[in-house]
């Protein structure tokens, strides 16, 4: 059983680490694009071709929210990543050595369960924030798309600066929508991770009865 379990454990550990790393990268993207949106909005005022004040305010508000979410994303992902670093290092060293004794593998499983117990609430919060962040970036993308599209029919009458802004708005819209879709996808993967580990916690709890009997029988 140990070899098969070791394989499963290793594959899952790699998948989870990859998910956390992708999360950190997209947290950074979310912050960068939030900042980029704020700068782009302010530049439009600077060149004297401002969009509607309501749209500008909405873009800045959404961008600031995106930056905050990105920051939370990175901080939380880094904390989760730190929690599994020790287990991952031990796993890598064990895998290099060839065989892993059953008790060592069980110790890693105990450590992963403990890690999930401690981070369960944070992971569920990340799922919600990821979904919210995804929807915010989709909204930002749609706002940029509308703004860019509105400028196009009037393009012959616009100067080169306005045309450049229209192109930039459409490019930003594509990036925002891309980030939004990836954020929603990441959120769904965290839901799947939580489902798998919630089931394991439940199975471990159910197994406690037999462990209790074993400890208390004489």
């Amino acid at each position: 059983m140990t070899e098969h379990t070791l394989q499963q454990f290793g594959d899952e550990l790699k998948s989870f680490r990859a998910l956390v790393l992708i999360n950190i990268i997209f947290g950074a993207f979310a912050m960068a694009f939030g900042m980029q949106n704020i700068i782009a909005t302010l530049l439009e005022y600077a060149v004297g071709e401002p969009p509607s004040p309501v749209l500008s305010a909405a873009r800045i508000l959404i961008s600031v929210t995106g930056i905050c979410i990105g920051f939370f994303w990175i901080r939380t992902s880094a904390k989760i990543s730190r929690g599994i670093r020790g287990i991952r290092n031990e796993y890598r060293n064990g895998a290099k050595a060839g065989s892993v004794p059953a008790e060592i593998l069980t110790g890693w499983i105990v450590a992963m369960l403990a890690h999930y117990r401690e981070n369960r609430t944070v992971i569920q919060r990340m799922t919600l924030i990821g979904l919210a962040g995804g929807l915010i970036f989709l909204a930002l993308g749609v706002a940029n798309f509308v703004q860019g599209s509105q400028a196009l029919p009037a393009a012959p009458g616009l100067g080169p600066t306005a045309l450049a802004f229209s192109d930039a708005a459409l490019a930003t819209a594509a990036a925002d929508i891309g980030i939004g879709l990836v954020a929603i996808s990441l959120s769904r993967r965290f839901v799947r991770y939580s489902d798998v580990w919630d089931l394991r916690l439940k199975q471990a709890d159910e197994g406690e009865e037999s462990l209790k009997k074993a400890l208390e029988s004489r």
Partner: protein
Amino acid sequence: MAERRTSYEIYWEILVYCKTRRTFTTIIGRCDLNSKTGQEYLGFLVSRGFLTVDKDGEKVTYVATERAAEYITLFTQLYQGLFDKGPMFRL
């Protein structure tokens, strides 16, 4: 990590570590317990016959008994079974 583990997991860690003779200090250090909870866990395991205590002058050591092997096997089967049964997480 102590507060994130269940008592059954802590019992298992102590018993596995005590397969070879250990002192109280090394057990609580290795299993991340404080002195008070360490005494409680070790006291329970000794009272149930999972550990025996040896006193050599001032030095007190603990070692797992044959009964401990049964608990360790049951625990190992249960926890490894968590990865053998049910859905897996894949990216």
